């Protein structure tokens, strides 16, 4: 890539202003370790920079993503070989079985309530994964299941998911095509209709999963008023307190993504979960390192403090 680009990258990764030889040396050292510092551009990197497809601004994300993929593949191969993987208890997921059993005994329906986001949102995908597992268990117990929907695309996907789950459970005859239904395309119309249904039908179990907005408390409080067991899970940080207050069990953030591995105990899924844990440990280690080195620089080498700060910020910058 052009000389201007290289000089821009140098400035971008090293930072502006003076700092002396020590600052430059530290940048080279750290950059050499993590392949993102361009204090001196090696020959191979120049060629790579000229490659017309790569967006150099996102190269750090690419390096970290590929690294994460390798960690994931390592744990998948370990899981395939049958290595033991420890999984901490998640009360909300342990209660899922009990909640379905309770609904079966009472002869009352189980409500699976989605968040508002469309199916290309990752939290909705996680919710659909769990719906498949819940529907299979519900089919085995022959309990009534109701899945109201706000998004037409989610409705179409969930209808197929529930149908497939009944077929896999060997209970295709018990499948009710109207168990997954579309309500309305707007937030509060959906909230009003679902909370009305909850109050009229008084279900035994409510499972609220996905990405929720202001309707979360309306749904959860209506469910709590009927005395149903409520299991909620969301990665919407602003809605978590409402679920914690109104539901019996809450899956917080990443627990929503861990649910399918936890419920099925499939080795491959558990392997992916372990990779996630390693990613978390590395993120924590990076943050601790950043804090430690920046603090150290602040206390003893004020001239390099900015370099440290910029280096770590650039390392984790996504755009």
């Amino acid at each position: 890539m052009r000389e201007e680009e290289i000089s821009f990258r140098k400035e971008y990764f090293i930072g502006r202003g003076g700092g002396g030889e020590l600052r430059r040396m530290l940048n080279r050292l750290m950059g050499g370790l993590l392949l993102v510092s361009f204090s001196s551009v090696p020959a191979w990197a120049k060629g790579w920079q000229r490659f017309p497809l790569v967006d150099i601004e996102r190269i750090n994300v690419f390096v970290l993503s590929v690294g994460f993929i390798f960690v994931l593949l390592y744990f998948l191969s370990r899981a395939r070989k049958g290595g033991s993987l420890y999984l901490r208890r998640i009360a909300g997921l342990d209660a899922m079985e009990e909640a379905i059993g309770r609904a079966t005994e009472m002869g009352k329906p189980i409500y699976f309530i989605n968040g508002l986001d469309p199916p290309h949102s990752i939290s909705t995908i996680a919710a659909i994964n769990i719906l498949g597992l819940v529907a299979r268990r519900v089919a085995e117990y022959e309990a009534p299941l109701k899945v109201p929907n706000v998004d037409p695309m989610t409705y179409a996907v969930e209808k197929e998911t529930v149908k497939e789950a009944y077929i896999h459970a060997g209970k295709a005859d018990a499948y009710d095509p109207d168990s997954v239904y579309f309500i309305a395309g707007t937030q509060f119309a959906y909230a009003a209709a679902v909370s009305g249904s909850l109050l009229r039908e008084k279900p035994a179990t409510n499972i609220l999963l996905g990405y929720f907005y202001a309707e979360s408390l309306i749904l959860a409080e209506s469910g709590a008023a009927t005395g149903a067991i409520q299991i909620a899970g969301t990665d919407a940080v602003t809605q978590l307190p409402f679920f914690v207050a109104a539901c019996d069990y809450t899956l917080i953030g990443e627990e929503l993504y861990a649910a399918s591995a936890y419920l099925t105990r499939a080795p491959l899924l558990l392997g992916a979960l372990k990779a996630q844990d390693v990613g978390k440990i590395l993120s924590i280690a990076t943050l601790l390192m950043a804090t430690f080195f920046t603090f150290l620089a602040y206390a003893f080498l004020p001239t390099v403090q900015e370099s440290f700060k910029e280096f770590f910020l650039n390392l984790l910058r996504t755009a």
Partner: protein
Amino acid sequence: MVTIAIPWFIVLGFAGFTVYALFKPPLRRWVAISIALAVGMYMFFQFFTTTETPAGEYFNEWFQRFNKWAIIISGLTVILAVGNLLKIHILKVKKLQPGWGYSFITLLALFTMSLFGILGIQFQKEGIPWYQWTFRWLWKTFNVALDSSMFALLAFFMASAAYRAFRARNMEASLMLATAIIVMLGRVPVGDYITSAFPTLTSWILMFPNLAAQRGIMMGVALGAIATSLKIILGIERPYLGGAK
């Protein structure tokens, strides 16, 4: 662009479906997994490509195309969804099942809004504003008012949830109660009137312990999202096949 995409989409859809139907079920599954893998990997690499060079632009063309396909598919699913809505509510009214009145209102609202919405667009060029005006009037008078009412109800739900959550049953609940009192007092003028420490303490709680916990959750969510995406791209988890093995 959409008018060009639709015939292509239909032709490719039929061709794809015919080829797909020729395969036996285990092979069909692998076809679906291969498509998911190819498209998933493309989307992954697309994120790291530039649009500023001709090669990059060419590579990104398919990204735009996939997005348009997603819009078309979502449009088609609306037909399915409305069909389902009609089926359920017409049956309910026909059989006079409990709550059929609500179903009747739903159907009435659906047909009225659709009628005035479609007529409004149809006669837009001919200068008949009556339909559009009626549509807007119905929207503002009913929908906006009802939406606002539902949103306002949130205040009462919040009060009842807070009452349950803030009962000092144990150490953690008492701590939450104390924090809530400080934050609530710090956010209203009367708190500042009692002591200026309330707003300062509130800012500290929100900016440090609260933000630290939120960022911790968000980091876990980001990693979970990446892992879930990879599981789907690599075919380890297949929600699009109904969880089939």
